[in-house]
């Protein structure tokens, strides 16, 4: 069975000369625009039936009686009844060509590369073979072919004809482009075409777009929604309704591309967070959603938010996350003077632990800020919002420099560096560490990039070109704009930073202007600042929370 299918794919991809496809009569009838595809059930997207739309028939200027259509439908062999004349339009034309096809068997293969007739013949599926091998005998048919030749077979057949045919088909396609955009009125000079052009297009499937302003005769494939027309009966995946499984309790927040709700599972009463992604019709699925889903599927760690499930319904994508009580920003609002030192250690350790896991898998978070760091009532910290995250290549490679919220963006990226590494996230960790201690942001730039850089340089000092020579090559670096300043001691920055003691050393390591001097997450975990934590904390499995340690059990809130 598989072999058969791959053979068919081979045909589509250009092996027509070797194996021919059997035309499927039953489906070819679908390719008439008088038959509309009607959705019978909303729940199963693939459930369809075919019926004849009578109104359209009445409107249609085709002089074909319904009985002819019925005959087509059941595919009786009485084709000779209606004489193949020009007035019979589409059907007779097909029939005539079919008859000639038999006679022209010998020429078929030679001409196959030239005849790029894709949608003029009876059907797409059955006719992949038929249309490609039809050799147009009469001049009328040749004109027909000229007009309706699509590029699709040209895609398929570059190899067949060799040099001569490919060049001719190129000319033909150039001609086609102009013909496609030409108003179709001009085509009515040909008698045969006039009848075909006048057919009424009746797209009833939801997904059928109106290309009529571009071309009056659309290819067959445009009439059908490929996702719904797979089988006459409902196919594999039954759609689950999110609202059947979860009750919404409250709205937690709304971002630019998603809305988050707090929900309760109807099955077991567990709390979850539903993130509803807004689909932009023009963009398709946002790449943030694709990246978040694909990355979180591979990142399973106690300090990274867990993606339970993904739903797709009513053209909306919904992620089901584990429920976290609040984010770090709200937590810091409760403590405006900063957290106590041991809490900082616990939270910072968890943050670094989650980040190490990401970096080991060469994934950069790229949007680290208190709003994206979630806490639950047990005091566990989890990284969230991987919408901007991406897998990094092993060697240097340029990436977008418009990442990370301004306040947490490192100076090298602010200066226009696009060549960053894991150090990007570490600057954010430093900012968050200081913020947890003082209760407010360390570098609250108010306006733009330049202002943000001023704020950073006024605390950390201007870049020293001897220790960081690469800064001279950064595009936005200009020593004239930034007057030289010295690095401030942390006590002068904020008096409460003093209580970090040896943490100040870690803070300096994290907030290095030079990205290559910045400490990495895995090394930061070994800093003496964390020596108060039990040593077995380094031996935990990735899936284990740090609160499984007996020493930390009591600290669980």
């Amino acid at each position, binding site marked *: 069975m598989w072999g058969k299918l791959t053979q*068919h794919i081979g045909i589509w991809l250009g092996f027509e000369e070797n194996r021919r496809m059997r035309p499927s009569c039953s489906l070819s009838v679908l390719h008439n625009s008088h038959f509309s595809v009607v959705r019978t059930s909303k729940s199963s997207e693939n459930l369809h039936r075919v019926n004849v739309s009578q109104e359209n028939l009445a409107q249609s200027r085709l002089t074909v009686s319904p009985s002819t259509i019925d005959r087509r439908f059941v595919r009786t062999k009485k084709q000779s009844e209606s004489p193949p004349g020009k007035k019979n339009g589409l059907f007779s034309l097909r029939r005539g060509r079919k008859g000639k096809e038999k006679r022209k068997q010998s020429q078929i293969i030679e001409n196959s590369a030239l005849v790029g007739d894709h949608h003029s013949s009876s059907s797409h599926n059955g006719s992949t073979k038929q249309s490609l091998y039809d050799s147009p005998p009469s001049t009328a048919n040749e004109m027909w072919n000229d007009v309706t030749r699509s590029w699709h077979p040209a895609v398929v057949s570059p190899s067949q004809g060799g040099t001569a045919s490919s060049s001719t088909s190129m000319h033909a396609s150039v001609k086609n482009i102009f013909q496609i955009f030409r108003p179709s009125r001009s085509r009515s000079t040909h008698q045969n075409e006039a009848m075909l052009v006048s057919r009424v297009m009746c797209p009833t499937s939801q997904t059928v777009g109106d290309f009529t302003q571009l071309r009056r005769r659309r290819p067959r494939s445009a009439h059908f929604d490929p996702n719904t027309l797979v089988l006459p009966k409902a196919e594999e995946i039954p759609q689950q309704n999110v609202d059947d499984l979860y009750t919404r309790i409250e709205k937690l927040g709304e971002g630019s591309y998603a809305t988050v709700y707090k929900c309760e599972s109807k099955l077991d009463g567990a709390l979850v967070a539903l993130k509803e992604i807004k689909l932009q019709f023009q963009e398709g699925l946002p790449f943030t959603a694709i990246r978040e889903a694909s990355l979180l599927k591979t990142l399973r760690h106690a300090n990274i938010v867990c993606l339970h499930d993904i739903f797709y319904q009513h053209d909306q994508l919904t992620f089901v996350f584990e429920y976290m009580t609040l984010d770090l920003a709200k937590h810091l609002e409760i403590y405006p003077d900063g957290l106590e030192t041991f809490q900082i250690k616990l939270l910072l350790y968890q943050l670094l632990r989650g980040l190490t896991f990401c970096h080991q898998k060469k994934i950069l978070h790229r949007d680290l800020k208190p709003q994206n760091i979630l806490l639950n009532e047990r005091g566990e910290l989890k990284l969230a919002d991987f919408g901007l995250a991406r897998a990094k290549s092993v060697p*240097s490679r340029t990436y977008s420099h418009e990442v990370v919220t301004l306040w947490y963006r490192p100076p090298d990226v602010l200066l226009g560096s696009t060549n960053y590494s894991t150090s990007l996230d570490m600057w954010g960790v430093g900012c968050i560490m200081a913020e947890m201690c003082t209760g407010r942001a360390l570098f609250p730039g108010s306006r733009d990039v330049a202002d943000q850089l001023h704020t950073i340089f006024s605390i950390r000092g201007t870049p020293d070109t001897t220790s960081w020579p690469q800064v001279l090559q950064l595009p936005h670096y200009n020593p004239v704009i930034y007057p030289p300043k010295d690095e401030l001691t942390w006590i002068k920055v904020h008096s409460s930073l003093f209580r970090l003691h040896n943490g100040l050393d870690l803070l300096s390591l994290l907030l290095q202007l030079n990205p290559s001097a910045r400490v990495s997450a895995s090394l930061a975990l070994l800093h003496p600042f964390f020596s108060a934590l039990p040593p077995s904390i380094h031996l935990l499995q990735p899936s284990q929370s740090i609160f499984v340690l007996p020493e930390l059990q009591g600290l669980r809130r």
Partner: protein
Amino acid sequence: MFLHFVSQIIPSLIQCFFLCCFLTKGGLVAKRIEWTTLCQTSVWSIQKIFLKSIFYFWIAPHRNWRTKMDGDKSPTFARNFLDPLGDMPGPYLDDFFIFLKDSNKVNKQSNQVSHLSYLNRRGIDYIFTICARLKMPPDVRFVAALIFDRYMSVHVQEAHLFINTLDMTAEQKAEQWTKTQCNIIRQLSLRVVTAIQIASKDNYYHDSLSNAVTAKILLAVGSPFTPRAIIRSEMRMLRAIDYVLPFSPITYIESVLKTLDRYDINLEHPNVIWEHAVLFLDVMFSFLNEIIAQLQTNLANITSQTLTSRKIPVKGDWLLIGCSCLTCAIACVYGFERADAVSATIGKITSISSQDIVDLSVATIHFINNEHQEVGKGCDECTTGQEFEKRRYD
């Protein structure tokens, strides 16, 4: 009004025209040039040709693209092995390498990974040509091929299973199956372009394909679908592959290449080797079955003397394929002696038998030579990349 209409149409016309030209000619000629010119056995000539083809097929088109996208702001796809600034820090690189080896081992044993069984050479050509015309970075085309293949295997299995469970007679089932096959075939171009779209969204920040662009591409390749159909197709493919996007095989190449200088092997031009290796990966993707057949014949010739049969499972082992591409590239740039020496180290790093790597690389180069002799006869036009370039833009 009319002018406005014309000005709107012209860019898309040009785009369509180039797409059309390239689809009819470019994809295949691009391959042929390599085969034709690879006839010389001397290493240097091979290198020259490769550099030429690299320039004309990758660097030149991308150069246009870069000027189009206001200069330096747009991220480029090129790797820079010499700049230590954006490197992965050393400890992470080691960790990642172990993770990579592990996942490769898991992939080899499971059926959950793509073995390119649904893509023959034409299919690969089709995907690669569309990607080349869209000026996608090299990762995209490999990832798209893998996504497409994975989707097809899942989708076809599901459909088959579903029809099997239907309450029907055998004939009815066979009829249904035929219908399903027809539908699958009709949707192929949609699935291919959607795979490219997903891969571009995974790899690219600025220039991922939007739905509108995807619809235009599909129109240009001759099977238009509406944006809504494309969104659904996107969702369907993602659901089928369970939202897990495959590793780009280039990752294996560059990880090994980057790890090499930690083992005191200093290759002078890592970027050039990387570009060569990507070209060889193209060849591997297009002709994997043929190369495996070549490998089997080569092995059979050896084993007839020693009476021990050795089999190398290649399919699905992207680490082995990546290593062989790298070895081929080194052979192209520095010659075969150097490649032999380096392949021993590569074997040590990746814990793959270096004999396997060498055998596969030799089979690849054999195959390329043979292929030239067959294909090259019928192709006397377009002998140089320059000529080809001229024709393409004429």
